[in-house]
């Protein structure tokens, strides 16, 4: 799931200040699960922003252009009348709404990461969408995501009792975790394997996925 967090209200008020008429779009998928852009949060936002909100809707999946077309069509008039659209979804949804409507779009949320849910309000950053998955070699723990130095041949000298120097020794050192799990699985040969530098050239070319 894409994990989002609502921007501070002062920031949203500042961003929406120049516009007289606003339309709010929520997200029925990830942001609903995150409780950042579902029916309830959209209604709350409309209330806080008051009279300038001339309409709201929750698009089932705003990052899907086809669904934007389907779910925004019934609100065509209000959208046309609005000076700007406040979108309560991840950045991908905001961009799809911008493209579909051609209107000024304002992001109400900050997009944090592709996350795992422990429970509502506890999400963990676990995948960088790097395009070259090596989880088979690292015991199902992603060092690119969970190690702040993104080391492929860790750990570094900054781990203390298995905790990382980044974040006041609160987070686990990804590489100590990888070592522990590979050891349990009797696969330490994978820990000893040297992983050569990544090809960031290839990554730079990933803009679209078309098949």
């Amino acid at each position: 799931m894409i994990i989002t967090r609502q921007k501070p209200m002062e920031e949203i008020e500042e961003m929406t200040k120049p516009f007289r008429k606003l339309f709010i779009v929520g997200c029925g998928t990830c942001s609903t699960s995150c409780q950042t852009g579902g029916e309830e949060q959209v209604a709350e936002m409309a209330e806080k922003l008051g009279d300038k909100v001339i309409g709201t809707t929750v698009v089932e999946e705003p990052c899907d252009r086809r669904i934007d077309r389907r779910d925004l069509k019934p609100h065509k008039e209000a959208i046309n009348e609005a000076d700007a659209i406040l979108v309560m979804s991840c950045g991908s949804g905001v961009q799809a709404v911008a493209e579909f409507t051609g209107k000024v779009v304002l992001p109400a949320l900050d997009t944090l990461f592709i996350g795992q849910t422990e429970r509502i309000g506890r999400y963990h950053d676990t995948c960088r969408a790097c395009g070259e998955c090596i989880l088979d070699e690292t015991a199902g723990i992603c060092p690119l995501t969970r190690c702040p130095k993104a080391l492929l041949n860790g750990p570094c000298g900054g781990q203390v009792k298995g905790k990382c120097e980044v974040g006041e020794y609160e987070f686990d050192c990804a590489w100590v975790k990888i070592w522990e799990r590979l050891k349990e699985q009797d696969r330490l040969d994978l820990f000893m394997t040297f992983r050569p530098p990544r090809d960031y050239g290839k990554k730079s070319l990933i803009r679209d996925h078309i098949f």
Partner: protein
Amino acid sequence: MVSKRPAYSNLMKEIRKGKFVLTGELEPEKTTGLEEVLASARAMKPYVTAANVTDNPLAMAYMNSLVPSYVVQKETGLETVYQMVIRDRNRLALTSDILAASYLGIRNVLAISGDHTVLGDNKGGLPVYDLDSAQFVYLLHKLIDEGTDLEGNEVHGEVGINVGIAANPNADPLEPEILKIGRKVPLGADFVQTQTMFDIDLTKEFLKEVEKFNCPTLVGVFPLKSFGIADFFDKFIPGVHVPKDLLRAMEKCKDEPDKEKRKDLYDKVNMEFFAPFIREIRKTTKAAGIHVMAVLYERIFEPLLRETM
């Protein structure tokens, strides 16, 4: 497995000859001058084979370490170990700097990760980490032994550099640290310098563990110039703690009002701790030497050498 490369540096030559070597440490800071670094270099030169020049330690934005690495060699004749962290530059910049270092006559590089940017004084900076320290050793191997960059593009001229890596015997757990050294040495490391050590038993255990990698290892020690430094070190250097007795002994010295007497007291505490430590390492282990991180505390070298060598 990389075959043993020639000893390009005096440090490497001395190590290969079997001499128990000492290396020192120089720390350029947030300054445009090098007077202090040069004075330190001159003061330690009679006692050490080479001196490391730190590269933005603790992620502080200081003077680039290549320039002092070169200037110290040129002005004082003291060989340097050019420390390079992979936090601040990508593979292009690392390659460029190695080529430049080679031109400037640098013969030792210490390839290290570097503390994360968020620990430093420009916390908002992008941490680069394009390569990790193992991959950097691999890049150095390509440049030195194969005459190409990472992609295989030919380098004109030779890169004659010996490569050091860092290790942290204080690491807890220690096993992944040992395995990591075993992973890194065959990529092209010529020597190891360790993080600073206070625990003799741990040091000996570590040295025993890494013997199998057959890579000369210099044990790091950090003589403590003052109680303030000892206290800072204890609190802020990741994974390193000053033993309580030593810290207490240092604290006692700080109450001496006479500056000269206080200096003598500090020196005495240091000698009482480090002289037996170094003697023990020298006599009972296969360590190649000691890396003495006595930054701005050069006066300790003479008694330390007298008592231990």
